[in-house]
């Protein structure tokens, strides 16, 4: 039996309190549209960055592990806001 687990399966084992109201990471689609390298897509451990049908990178903040990798690799400056989730929201590690 393979020990290999897809990302959604792994994220399903984590505990999240998703803030439906306000995303803690915000992209500027206009800037992301100019990005050709999209390093965020490969680097995000939770694979939350996806190239949409229009060819522009989009983000689903639910499932964010709050590691900060996207903020570091972003070259185009499309991440116009990067903060931590509001109080009590986001991932909650039970092991860590």
């Amino acid at each position, binding site marked *: 039996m393979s*020990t290999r687990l897809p990302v959604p399966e792994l994220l399903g084992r984590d505990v999240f309190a998703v803030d439906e109201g306000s995303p803690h990471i915000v992209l500027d689609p206009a800037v992301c549209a100019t990005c050709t390298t999209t390093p965020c897509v490969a680097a995000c451990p939770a694979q939350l960055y996806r190239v949409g049908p229009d060819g522009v990178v989009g983000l689903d903040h639910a499932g964010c*592990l709050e590691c900060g990798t996207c903020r570091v690799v972003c070259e185009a400056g499309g991440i116009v806001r990067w903060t931590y989730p509001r109080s009590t929201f986001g991932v909650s590690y039970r092991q860590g």
Partner: protein
Amino acid sequence: MSDDADVDVIVVGAGPAGSACAHRLAREGRSVVLVERGTTAGAKNVSGGRLYTYALEALEEGLTRQAPFERAVVREQIMLVDGDRAMQVSVLPSGDSDPAGVPASVTVLRARFDAWLAGRAEGEGALLATGVTVDSLLMEHDRVVGIVADGEEMRASVVVAADGVSSLLAREAGLTGPLAPASVGVGVKEVVALDAAALEARFGVGPGEGAATLLLGCTGGVHGGGFMYTNAASISIGVVVSPGDLAAAGRTPHGLLQDLKEHPAVRPYLAGGESVEYSAHLVREDGVRGVPRRLAREGFLVTGEAAGFVLNLGYTVRGMDLALVSGIAAAEAVLAGGDLDAAYHAALERHGLMATMRGADGYRDLLHLHRLYGTYPGLALDVATSMFAVDGGPPPPLRRLVRDVRRRHGVPLRGLVRDGLVGVRSL
């Protein structure tokens, strides 16, 4: 406390640095508020999982034995991986326990460990406020006078930022700038639950004892490595890779970790285990060069990972011990008063932390040898495989064997010597 301050010190972040700082300050009678955005201390924190205990003893003698650690590390392993092949060096015992029987290093899971440590700080009188995300610093006349959380202000004579590798507060205070992709590794980790007895048998350790394993060559040629630590009833397995190189290599941190778990030399360790958590964390890899020149400004200082106190030595990553020591030093600087930055630097020198950071600088060169991550593990395995291959003929001279392998991997002798020298120098 200045007249309009609510408390003497606000420490932001209840990880090892923040809790150690709050612990020390509270013990010395300062009023301290320790603010943590996780609903419990440790809920947002991730590390490979190994803690060098001298730092815990520096905070308070005898603390290690009270700490909820997972296992005492008695076995060190280095595994070179190439394709389906692997070669492993195992060192036993690892490090000496001190005369009092305190193990030199232990494995920890942060949700448990950090909650305990923050509880110790509370025990000293610090006020722990969990579930509170600090949004920004409160500034007045070019001085940090407090914090803002969800629109609420709180004032303090000093704010200590122990808010981790992505430190938003150190950035806001102007002490640090953006991190370069090359200065960090992205770490991903799974915790795989496993029966304690099975785990002990697989790693060849006794009850309460554990192993620390470093893996090289498992990152698809991307700058980085893997790790495997034994917890009480689980294994922490992960990879740390350079995030900027991933897109070009067509790899993802998640994919590399899944590959590693499937490797024939790794899989038996994990067999029958159940993955119970997936986590990610950035690891500073720029050593002393990543520590900002100024660590404090009026009313503010930065400590722990937020201040770059992390060392990737290749064979081990040190973060929690440096965090603890820097947190203690930060507390001592606050207690000393006067020029915060000068007092802090003096305390860091006194604790030998800056010397450690400087001494480790050479490792950085070693770690930047690209061949370390792809070529050399394969080369070493080829040599080893040839050594163990018996075909009935006379054994080839070892020198020729190495030469053949080296040529096959396209490593010129000059390159090998140069890399070797870098390695020797760095050590």
